[in-house]
């Protein structure tokens, strides 16, 4: 039944609740209680299974109740993932009533925290969380800016009756809600739409879009990044400040987490210095990347993590891995693992779980890169890979990118229609290919990592062989590449590319690309397409490029490197199932260089967006972020054609010129490399 029927009607009767707890006794009791409240309750004793269920059917539930201590996944992690991917209200529950644990729950975004044993009265009030969220979202839409106290006041609008009675019982709920809200800096929260009937358009944070976002944040500096400025920098039509604000909030949480995570993890890469924040991230390449000025390590890591969705453990490679992954992703974008990631960078190490997946292992690409790429590519689940590799890739990519000026990106990516500014958001996308490859050394690679690779790489197999991926078009900015892609692959835009041809298209999806993005490619050989899942043409594969099983994040396909890589398949980008597609492919306009990271190149190199002003994927030209040259100057991301992608892409020559990235997925060209996408066998 429709989730929450507001106003009136039957709500909250029939509200769909998912309960996750490893304790069967508690599950049985809770279920009975929920049924007693006339909710529609589903129980699940494993967090991983719950996450799968949610991903498959995002609208199938209105609210989640989750235990804190679970053997297969930490409850807080589940909370984060659900919040990021599905944006559903999550209520934490535990016998543990320690204040610090409760605080942790709130900080991670829980709507409420119940202490066991849970009483019926408490359960009777949980519907307000659903309504509140919905209202808030609506509110965001309506008022573009001032959401501040929406929450509180909101519920009252509609249901005074509810509100009043509920308030009594709500005890903690308001507070927790409030806290959550207070946390936001910008009251914007909720960017994405409400699960139920709100008609607000939901912003899908595709890889590209996210990439742009990240670029903007990097450009401003994480501390100074305010939604308003970010919005301006991104320059995405249709995006509101609230969207950005809520996304920023999540991003910050993500970064924090990453930082904590990395802090504990020894970074192999730990580059010295790099921003203090990042430092915690763990040496990851991010740092390196950050150093390169590309993406602040932290951001990168964060992105990656986020993008990748932070897969449960496995993907999450400790800061390092992620970076590596990302880098790889960036670089090699390996469509799924195999590819591109050739970067070889150590990143694999990281979690390599995900990465290891990449089978391909980058043939030659820089070796290191390939490694990544492979990793990235493989990573299917490794969503993190994308990200991780990104970090690494970033480095690598950076190099590469630098070498090859965006040409790569532009060329390749573009073919796909995607012009993607390549939001190559790291995340998952390994797909995004290797955007790093093409991505200009500028940090984009980082950003892209994952995504770009995926994306670029994504180019799909369908594109197949087509040189499409603009690889050759070096300079032509991604668009060029994409064009190729388009033409060649005809398969077009990745977005739909089922086969993944267009990884680049990913961008298209970027905003929304229905999960296809990644998935689409995937089907094809796209190596990149990481998201194997994504292939689902159209199917939203949550996993963005990397099929990361795990984690969700992949959906983020950030990897989508710059527009071009349509291959990346929107799946990568868009499908990211998560909305994270940030990558809105930058509008190609911007792609050119100025913004690098997200821009065109999907951060990796493929300047996604870079060059093509219009080509961008899907949305083509989504004005993604006209980021001013981020510094990177070139396509951020790829700019250099694909240089990132180590030989792998080079293989393709087809794209060649810029190849750099063209092969690479999506990202400017490199990614597109046919191989990557499926052409030759991607790196």
């Amino acid at each position, binding site marked *: 039944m429709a989730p929450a029927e507001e106003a009136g009607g039957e709500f909250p009767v029939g509200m769909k609740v998912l309960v996750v707890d*490893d*304790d*069967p*006794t*508690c599950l*049985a*009791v809770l279920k*009975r*209680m929920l049924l*007693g409240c006339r909710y529609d309750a589903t129980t699940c004793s494993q967090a991983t299974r719950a996450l799968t269920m949610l991903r498959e059917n995002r609208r199938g539930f209105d609210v989640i109740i989750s*235990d804190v*201590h679970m053997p297969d996944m930490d409850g807080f992690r589940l909370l984060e993932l659900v919040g990021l991917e599905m944006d559903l209200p999550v209520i934490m529950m*535990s*016998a*543990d009533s320690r204040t610090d644990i409760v605080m942790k729950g709130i900080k991670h975004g829980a709507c409420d925290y119940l202490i*066991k*044993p849970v*009483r*019926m009265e408490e359960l009777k009030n949980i519907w307000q969380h659903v309504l509140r969220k919905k209202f808030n979202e609506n509110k965001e839409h309506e008022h573009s800016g001032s959401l501040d106290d929406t929450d509180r006041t909101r519920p009252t609008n509609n249901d005074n009756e509810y509100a009043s009675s509920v308030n009594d019982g709500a005890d903690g709920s308001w507070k927790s809600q409030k806290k959550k809200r207070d946390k936001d800096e910008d009251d914007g929260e909720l960017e994405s739409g409400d699960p139920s009937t709100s008609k607000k358009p939901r912003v899908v944070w595709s890889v590209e879009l996210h990439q742009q976002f990240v670029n903007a944040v990097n450009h401003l500096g994480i501390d100074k990044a305010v939604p308003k400025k970010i919005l301006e920098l991104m320059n995405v039509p249709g995006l509101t400040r609230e969207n950005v604000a809520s996304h920023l909030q999540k991003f910050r949480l993500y970064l924090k987490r990453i930082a904590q995570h990395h802090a504990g993890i020894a970074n192999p890469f730990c580059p010295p210095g790099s921003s203090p924040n990042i430092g915690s991230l763990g040496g990851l390449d991010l740092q390196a990347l950050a150093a390169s000025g590309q993406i602040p390590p932290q951001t990168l890591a964060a992105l990656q993590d986020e993008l990748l969705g932070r897969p449960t453990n496995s993907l999450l490679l400790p800061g390092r891995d992620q970076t590596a992954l990302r880098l790889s992703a960036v670089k090699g974008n390996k469509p799924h693992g195999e590819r591109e990631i050739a970067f070889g960078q150590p990143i694999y190490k990281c979690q390599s779980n995900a990465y290891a997946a990449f089978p391909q292992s980058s043939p030659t690409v820089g070796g290191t890169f390939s490694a990544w790429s492979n990793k990235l590519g493989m990573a299917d689940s490794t969503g993190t890979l994308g990200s991780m590799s990104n970090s690494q890739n970033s480095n690598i990519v950076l190099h590469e990118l630098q070498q090859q000026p965006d040409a790569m990106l532009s060329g390749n990516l573009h073919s796909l229609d995607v012009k993607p500014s390549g939001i190559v958001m790291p995340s998952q996308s390994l797909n995004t290919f290797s955007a790093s490859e093409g991505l200009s050394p500028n940090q984009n690679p980082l950003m892209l990592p994952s995504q770009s690779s995926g994306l670029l790489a994504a180019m799909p197999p369908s594109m197949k062989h087509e040189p499409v991926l603009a690889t050759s078009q070096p300079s032509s900015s991604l668009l060029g590449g994409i064009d190729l892609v388009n033409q060649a692959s005809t398969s077009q835009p990745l977005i739909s590319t089922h086969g993944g041809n267009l990884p680049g298209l990913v961008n298209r999806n970027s905003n929304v690309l229905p999960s296809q993005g990644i998935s689409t490619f995937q089907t094809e050989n796209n190596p990149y397409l990481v998201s194997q899942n994504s292939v689902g043409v159209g199917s939203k594969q949550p996993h963005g490029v990397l099929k990361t099983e795990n984690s969700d994040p992949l959906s983020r396909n950030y990897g989508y490197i710059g527009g071009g890589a349509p291959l990346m398949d929107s799946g990568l980008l868009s499908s990211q199932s998560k909305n994270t597609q940030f990558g809105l492919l930058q509008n190609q306009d911007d792609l050119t260089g100025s913004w690098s990271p997200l821009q065109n190149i999907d951060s990796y190199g493929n300047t996604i967006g870079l060059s093509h002003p219009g080509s961008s994927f899907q949305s083509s030209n989504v004005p993604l972020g006209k980021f001013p040259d981020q510094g990177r100057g070139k396509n951020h991301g790829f700019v250099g054609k694909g240089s990132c992608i180590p030989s792998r892409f080079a293989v393709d020559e087809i794209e060649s010129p810029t190849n750099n990235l063209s092969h690479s997925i999506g990202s400017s060209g490199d990614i597109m490399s046919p191989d990557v996408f499926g052409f030759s066998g991607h790196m």
Partner: protein
Amino acid sequence: MKKSLFDQGYLDEQFCQVEDLQDEASPNFVEEVVTLFFKDSGRLMSNIEQALEKYPRDFNRWDAYMQQLKGSCCSIGASRMKNECMSFRDSCGQGNVEGCMRSFQKVKREHAVLRQKLESYFQLLRQAGPAGAATRPIM
């Protein structure tokens, strides 16, 4: 009998909540849940026992396992058992191995006692007949 269970602190308010959930639609809900509890808690307890042996002084691990058991006890209102669980966790927090061992023995004992008492309780309910069982026994 029920009253005595409450008076002696074996069960608490939560148990009443669980009983309230029983109705015509699920007439044996309480017994089912209790059975489920004992099965699961048996498993948890043997985990703890193993951990006590295999991982000496691994308080974090012990604590984590006990946390799970405690949560379970809470859900059905096994009050005394829950208290012993909490004291076990306190001992863990203090790094007191002896205290942990002692507490654990108490937990086991409470567990056995409770199981016995509830079994009798349900038997009584059954004897009271369908009519008796349908309504909350007042003891």
